[in-house]
């Protein structure tokens, strides 16, 4: 049983962080960043994040797991068909990786290989179903597995998505397909989070709210223009723009979001993008 699932089961407020594998084979920076993390239940390892080609999330997660850091392996449907996804999940289990964040994935158009053929053989709901099948001892072809993986599968959600009802029917499907926790896209206002958590109540699945450290107004604008599902409200962009120390203001904005999460959610997922040293300040 993973530490993350234990903490959530015990009703503890969990903190997760995330790390991106390098573009290349030099893991030193990623490993050093993880070393600096304290008070974290598990570290998400992103999978070709934003459709930019990097070292495999499975390879870095395996390395971290072997040196005693608990990970949440992110796996998207963009780059692999159902056979590769199953292989990778079995491979992950063989390294002791249990926590999964199963995603559709950003479209290849957004990344550094826009000419590649996006796969999407499965969607995130089907991927969750498949993971549940593997845990029950059978692959998608109905064949028995020799050695059955143990996973703690999670899913993603954008609580701010509109139409809300349409977004939420997929959340319900993900729960039906075995999602045991949710990590959300970055949240920027409390009302959105409250509305979402109210809808989540009957489903009884823990929600870890996404909190993004925004360094500057320029970064906020970049996110708004380039990252699907992220819309930093203009009021926050202005706060960052007029701040004397934008990074400190970003930390303050993140602190506010963490406070909402403490009130309404079961944990917080910190996306600090290289500023992992700010995590204690964000959580303080």
């Amino acid at each position: 049983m993973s530490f993350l699932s234990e903490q959530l089961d015990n009703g503890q407020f969990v903190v997760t962080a995330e790390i991106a594998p390098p573009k290349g084979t030099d893991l030193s920076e990623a490993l050093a960043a993880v070393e600096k993390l304290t008070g974290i239940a598990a570290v998400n390892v992103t999978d070709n994040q934003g459709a930019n080609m990097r070292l495999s999330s499975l390879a870095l997660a395996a390395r971290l797991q072997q040196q005693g850091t608990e990970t949440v392996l992110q796996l998207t449907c963009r780059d692999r068909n159902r056979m590769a996804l199953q292989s990778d999940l079995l491979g992950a289990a063989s390294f002791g990786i249990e926590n999964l964040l199963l995603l559709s994935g950003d479209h290849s158009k957004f990344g550094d290989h826009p000419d590649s053929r996006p796969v999407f053989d499965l969607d995130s709901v089907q991927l969750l179903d498949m993971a549940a099948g593997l845990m029950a001892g059978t692959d998608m072809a109905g064949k028995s597995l020799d050695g059955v993986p143990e996973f703690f599968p999670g899913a993603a959600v954008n609580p701010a998505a509109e139409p809300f009802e349409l977004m939420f029917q997929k959340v319900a499907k993900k729960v039906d397909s075995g999602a045991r926790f949710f990590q959300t896209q970055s949240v920027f206002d409390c009302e959105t989070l409250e509305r979402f958590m109210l809808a989540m109540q009957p489903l009884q699945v823990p929600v870890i709210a996404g909190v993004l450290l925004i360094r500057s107004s320029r970064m906020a604008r970049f996110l708004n223009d380039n990252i699907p599902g992220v819309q930093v409200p203009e009021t926050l962009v202005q706060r960052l723009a007029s701040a004397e120390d934008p990074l400190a203001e970003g930390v303050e904005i993140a602190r506010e979001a963490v406070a909402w999460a403490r009130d309404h959610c079961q944990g917080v997922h910190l996306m600090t993008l290289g500023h992992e040293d700010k995590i204690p300040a964000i959580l303080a």
Partner: protein
Amino acid sequence: MIISELKPYEELQQALADFDKLFIVGCAACATACKSGGEDEVFKFQEWLNEQGKDATGSVIIDEACHIARAARDLRHHKAAVQDADALVVLACGSGIQSISSNVDKHVVGGLNSMFLGNVRRFGQYEEMCSLCGDCILNETAGICPVTTCAKGLLNGPCGGMEDGHCEVDAEIECAWSLIYERLKSQQRQGVFARRVPPKNWSRRFQPGRYRLKDGER
């Protein structure tokens, strides 16, 4: 119909570099309708060839260039002009190009890129709505195909990139799942939202596709 467009002239110049005399083939079906390989375009292409210092030995617009036997018959009617040419250049979809290349021994140059099976929104404006997947889900999705019109072909609802009912790939385009949802709601039915849709059976998308009517159906 099959939507196609003329290849860039630079690419055509390279593809035709070794040939001086060309026989031009157009198509009276899709390529005529989407103005890539009808009479006007064949005429324009001939003028362009002349500007390049090349000659056209003749031309033909085949009724449906994808019809292999018809293409053979029409080429036979132009036997002398075809024989006189160094190569044939075909302004038809990839299907049409291959009807021609399977009927002649000569070098065949395709002049068009084939893009998609398109619906006509209005004249000159085409939209892909079906990707011929062999496993149709339209009856559950209020007649809107997510396999084609969702950029990721998702089957269980929108992705996390949907913003105000629009697609992450192109903010001008409405999210296919949002459209499906609205239409099902207006028809007061649950449709595809009533179940978790299992992974698609891609073995039904035969490649290369082959189909034969049974004896009684022909």
